[in-house]
């Protein structure tokens, strides 16, 4: 018998949950598949090219930076670069020139992630860092939106049109009822028949993704729900106050990446808060900022900036929202 067997001695616990960083990341990837499928159906070849270029360059840059610049063992197989690549693609138009996508990937991974030390240490959502950089550097290309018209084999010359939020922004003093006539109706917005970024079009696909994330226990519901509720409430109050000037809440929720942001961008582990209390504040904060930027700012959509601003507040949120300690609630006697 194995009498003199060398036994492993390590501290407890001796069993672990069947989970890993990889599994969580691939959970996100699976949850993003319905969204990807819808964008391919709507934009055709453009969606495929943009996604492939973004994913491959994110993975490639992470590998190269780790291997040659930081001289670490590359950890690209953890799946986080793949997720960043997908999310970056989902936040840009389907006809964005390849060179610009690659620059976006370099900024996302190089500046957004690796300059802070890689997975787990970056304060800002890398995909959003890339997106906002592109928005500022290539405003024309980043806001020329191809119209979805079924599987399309034409990449660069796709016909472009305005996004619903763009129409709103341009409307100036035109009464809201007139403006609304120009935007697709809600069933189209919900299904995804509008101009916009790859991943922000279909409310249904995004909600399926949300349910998948919950099912795989990747995220908790707090951030998306508080975020979307706030957008609805705040824009609803404005709308009730003056329906001729402000768009209604459903319009705000279904356009311009609110759902994509709330479900996939704001819930990024690394850049979102840890405690439930803080998650609520964070979600509400993003919702408020989104509406403020949209309604009072000069950019048509506000989700990206709102999330990045709240990212910056996460360390403070974590610090000042300790979980309820055991022993402080119900006192006896």
């Amino acid at each position, binding site marked *: 018998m194995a009498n003199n067997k060398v036994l492993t001695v390590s501290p*407890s616990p001796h069993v672990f949950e069947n989970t890993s960083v990889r599994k969580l990341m691939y959970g996100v990837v699976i949850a993003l598949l319905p969204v990807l499928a819808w964008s391919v159906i709507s934009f055709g070849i453009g969606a495929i090219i943009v996604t492939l270029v973004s994913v491959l360059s994110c993975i490639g840059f992470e590998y190269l930076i780790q291997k040659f610049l930081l001289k670490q063992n590359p950890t690209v197989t953890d799946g986080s670069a793949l997720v960043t690549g997908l999310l970056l693609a989902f936040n840009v138009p389907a006809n964005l020139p390849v060179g610009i996508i690659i620059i976006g990937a370099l900024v996302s991974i190089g500046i957004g992630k690796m300059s802070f030390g890689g997975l787990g240490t970056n304060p800002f959502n890398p995909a959003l860092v890339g997106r906002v950089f592109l928005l500022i550097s290539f405003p024309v290309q980043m806001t020329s939106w191809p119209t979805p018209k079924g599987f399309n084999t034409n990449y660069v010359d796709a016909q472009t049109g305005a996004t619903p939020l763009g129409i709103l922004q341009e409307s100036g003093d035109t009464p809201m009822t007139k403006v609304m006539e120009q935007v697709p109706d809600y069933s189209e917005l919900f299904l995804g028949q509008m101009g916009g970024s790859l991943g922000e079009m279909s409310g249904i696909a995004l909600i399926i993704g949300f349910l998948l994330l919950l099912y795989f226990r990747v995220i908790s519901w707090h951030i998306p729900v508080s975020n979307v509720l706030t957008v609805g409430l705040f824009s609803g109050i404005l709308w009730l106050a003056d329906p001729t000037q402000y768009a209604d809440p459903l319009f705000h929720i279904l356009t311009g990446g609110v759902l994509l942001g709330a479900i996939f961008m704001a819930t990024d582990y690394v850049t979102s808060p840890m405690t439930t209390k803080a998650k609520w504040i964070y979600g509400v904060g993003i919702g408020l900022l989104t509406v403020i930027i949209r309604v009072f700012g000069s950019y048509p959509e506000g989700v990206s900036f709102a999330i990045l601003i709240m990212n910056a507040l996460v360390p403070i949120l974590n610090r000042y929202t300790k979980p309820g300690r055991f022993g402080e609630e119900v006192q006896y*006697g």
Partner: protein
Amino acid sequence: MLQTFSKGGVHPPENKFSANKPIENLGLPKQVSIPIAQHIGAPSKPVVKKKDKVKTGDIIAESQGFVSSNIHSSVSGTVSKVGEIIDTTGFKKPAVIIDVEDDEWNDSIDTGSEIIRDCSLSSQEIVDKILQGGIVGMGGATFPSHVKLSVPEGKKIDTLVINGVECEPYLTSDHRVMLERGEEMLVGIKLLKKALGVNHVLIGIEHNKPDAIEHVSHLVSKEENIEVYPLKVKYPQGGEKQLIKALLNREVPSGGLPLDVGVVVHNVGTSLAAYEAVQKNKPLVERVVTVTGKSLSKPSNFLVRIGTPVRDLIEAAGGLPEDTGKVVGGGPMMGKALSSLDVPVVKGTSGILVIPEKDAYRDEEFNCIRCGKCVDVCPMGLEPYLLKQLAQLERYEECEDNAIMDCMECGSCSFTCPARVPLLDYIRLGKTNVNQILRNRKDK
């Protein structure tokens, strides 16, 4: 909805392989090594020397001070050495080693199987018997039981809680005790109740032991003021603070004890031992130990003399499997990995868990991805990721501010972390250092 505690918690796979295996008497080993410090508190003082003849139940080391406990010989034979051995904690501990000859019991002990239900002793006499018998908490923490029964001046106890939760995966010794020794256990519970002078007893049992719930409920059906509470299955419900929260919705304050909220908690095994000590005059010389594991051929529950080498238990359970990587004393969440099979079973050994090689190592560690899962599962409402960082940076004052001393070392945080950050390893380190700081402060 079944009751449970409200904050955190995890649900590891239960793997109770030995749940249907009746308790078998393991029989006598050739030699026993009995550590004389088997409890929290001051080590006892040996009262035997080499070549002394001892009988089963003879006292071999005397309690020193209040939080200490007597140690008895678990066999009859000749003392071969009073020295040191390596015990389950991996450290050298003073111990008495006895060569076994026959099985002759101390004359004062009733070794018959008849159940004695009536007891005319006073509360104090019951506590004294429990003190004499060397009874300690048998759930693993081995806190001397008589201390818990001596309620300090000014404290009022209204409820005795009996812990039949057995929330650690794999372990089934308490489960079997409830099923097979339920009647004696119940007499023990009534003795503890009398000793404390309370008239309200709650027995908490997790829902995954329906037969035990049914059996014990049936036993107490004629008893007034003793109730069985089925609880939702959730680890670490067997922790005293969690159990009291689950049963009574009272929260023991940080740094406090159950008696601060009017409760005393005893384990089912301890109740059985209390019965034997009081009614049979039998000290704590044997206990039920689960021997289990995925690759073990015969997972079992054994009645084992204290001091028996773990090797004997594993032999009786089918032998050590070829693929063994780790052997744990206790459950998989809080048990200690053994460095050798020659260590003895002690009063706190509730189980021996054999872990195959492939499960014995930890997965590759990643950076913390700040997912917050460790915060969600911590039953004490702590922030394990933060405590780990602070301990690693040696910022112990901040560890203290963040309530590191409240950590009950349940391991839920390490268990759940997707990045496999060894959170509890660092938190333990932090606790040790904070403890030192606290002690220095007191000494000043």
